[in-house]
């Protein structure tokens, strides 16, 4: 199936009729803007001068030595302005909103990183910004709520359902349905109805494009293995996309196994889900026997989502990308190990990718080149991790 907006049968546009005009307007505008050199120049300027790109590709020498196998590089998305890769997409979509003549932006957020990125972009461009956030997440990520308020955004608490990211997304969609004429909805990951998964991927592929140049400069060749964490999957798609046609480059997406997949308390959508439709697209989902969406669980608020981007579902089914999962405990251990060995505190989301490299690197021959996407920094997670560290969790 090569229907428009589909990735090998995943994706599509499963939305109420009210949203069709906006999605079509967005699609048409975006088709033009992606080839519009003034748009691309403006975005590039912002990414360079405002966000600090390119982010470094850093050789993690001590981690490599400690694990005693593959050579490990970290793509330092944590060094972006606002502390995560989310700003790449927020700036790009804020520019789209301006070109569409929309004065207001809305966003959903889980951990708050995407909300902060949108609030930042809104402040930078003088747009009105409203962020929907589950009450449970507002409690877990109070610091990011304060950051958004400071940046002038309105944070709307969502008290329906599980009070986390999926419910914030429902509420953002409902709000958009009612305000679609003057509002642009900045979805934060490669999910949602077409054209969102493609737009977010295009704004995140800068991660992979830079990595490609940087690894060739450092090592004179392409990497052997790429690793990234997957919630909705935007940082992973961003890293993977420019390498998809390089058959020799192996790729691993790492999902959150929470308390263990067999406990049912996890967010490992691709590893343990079934195909369904949520938030406008067809993809793998965590659902019960009756097709009701199951609440996801992870220590990491940014991976705590029961769906996944449709392109990931396609990449899994084709076998191009391997998907694995690591538990809360393994992620916390990785969080702590990277902090101590490299002086880099990774976001709990990114710690899942680090945990996987801790498992995989020792099994690979020396000289194997691995790039791990360090999608964000971990300052926001210190409180969540503290009880574990007191317990003495180690890698």
């Amino acid at each position, binding site marked *: 199936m090569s229907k428009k907006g589909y990735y090998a049968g995943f994706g599509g546009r499963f939305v109420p009729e*009210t949203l069709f005009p906006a999605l079509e307007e967005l699609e048409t505008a975006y088709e033009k803007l992606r080839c519009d050199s003034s748009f691309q120049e403006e975005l590039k300027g912002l990414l360079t001068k405002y966000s600090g790109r390119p982010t470094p590709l850093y050789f993690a020498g001590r981690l490599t030595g400690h694990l005693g196998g593959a050579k490990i590089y970290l793509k330092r998305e944590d060094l972006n302005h606002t502390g995560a890769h989310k700003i790449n997409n927020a700036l790009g979509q804020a520019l789209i909103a301006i070109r569409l003549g929309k004065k207001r932006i809305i966003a959903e957020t889980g951990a708050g990183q995407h909300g902060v990125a949108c609030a930042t972009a809104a402040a930078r461009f003088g747009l009105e910004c409203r962020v929907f956030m589950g009450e449970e997440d507002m409690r877990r990520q109070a610091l990011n709520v304060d950051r958004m308020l400071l940046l002038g955004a309105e944070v709307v608490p969502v008290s*329906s359902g599980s009070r986390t990211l999926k419910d914030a997304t429902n509420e953002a969609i409902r709000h958009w349905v009612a305000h679609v004429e003057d509002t642009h909805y900045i979805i934060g990951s490669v999910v949602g109805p077409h054209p969102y998964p493609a737009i977010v991927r295009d704004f995140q592929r800068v991660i992979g494009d830079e990595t490609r140049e940087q690894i060739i400069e450092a090592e004179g060749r392409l990497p052997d293995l790429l690793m990234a964490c997957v919630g909705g999957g935007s940082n992973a798609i961003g890293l993977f996309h420019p390498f998809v046609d390089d058959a020799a480059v192996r790729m691993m997406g790492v999902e959150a196994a929470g308390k263990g997949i067999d406990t049912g308390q996890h967010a490992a959508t691709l590893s343990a889900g079934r195909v369904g439709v949520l938030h406008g697209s067809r993809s793998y989902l965590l659902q019960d026997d009756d097709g009701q969406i199951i609440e996801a669980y992870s220590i990491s608020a940014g991976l705590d989502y029961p769906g996944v981007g449709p392109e990931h579902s396609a990449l899994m089914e084709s076998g191009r990308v391997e998907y694995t999962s690591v538990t809360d405990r393994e992620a916390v251990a990785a969080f702590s190990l990277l902090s101590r060995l490299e002086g880099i505190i990774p976001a709990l989301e990114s710690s899942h990718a680090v945990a996987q490299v801790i498992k995989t690197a020792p099994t690979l021959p020396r000289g194997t080149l691995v790039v791990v996407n360090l999608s964000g920094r971990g300052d926001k997670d210190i409180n969540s991790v503290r009880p574990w560290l007191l317990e003495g969790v180690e890698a």
Partner: protein
Amino acid sequence: MNRFGKAFEKGRALLPFVTAGDPDLETTRSLVLALEEAGADIIELGVPFSDPQADGPVIQAAGQRALEAGTTLSGVLEMVRSLRGVVSTPLVLMGYYNPILNYGEDRFARDAAEAGVAGVIVPDLPFDEGEDFYGVLEREGVDGILMVAPNSEEKRLIETGRRAKGFVYCVSLMGITGQESGLYDRMGDYIDRVKKHVTVPLVLGFGIDSPERAAKAAALVDGVVVGSAIVRLVERFGHDRKRLLNEVKSFAARLKGAIKP
């Protein structure tokens, strides 16, 4: 041919909506009987879903209550089947796509037909994504009811007209169910645009919460859907079935009286 022909023959049709399984399926069954008695022409039964994108707080909460009571899609179908031969008012299921997809499109269409369901409305399954499903429904003799919105572009109205079965559900505002923003301000133009391309009967729904609004909407189309306002009664009187049935019956009768031509 049209399963809903009769419903629109006697003048403006009243289409009350209740969420199936709120507070339990037994109550929903009694509500269907009460609504028929009060003059409902078509009855819509909401199939609860954990993530109802097009619904406001009232119907969201009803869905939550129904799910907490253990309501499933097969349970709803079974309840409808038990009404076969008991009610003559056409029953329409309104529910989101994922539970149907999970149940199996073919199996759902077969079981719905067998239960006597006259039509199915899936707000998050537009005709372009639902080609297979709406085709399967048609083969089984169940109408796939399509929706249009005030901002629907002409090309979509044309396609809707070409594919419409039963009736077309015109969303009466830019927003979600139960919204209190008032109906779309250029309603006359909107309905005229739809009528240009759609020949089956039209009903208006979303935000129609009183006999006055129902009368206003009914003047333009063939029928009106009233959902959240009835669901609010279920929320209030759900613990007292006798009182609930009386309240719903009298409200439905007032609505019916208001929309009479």
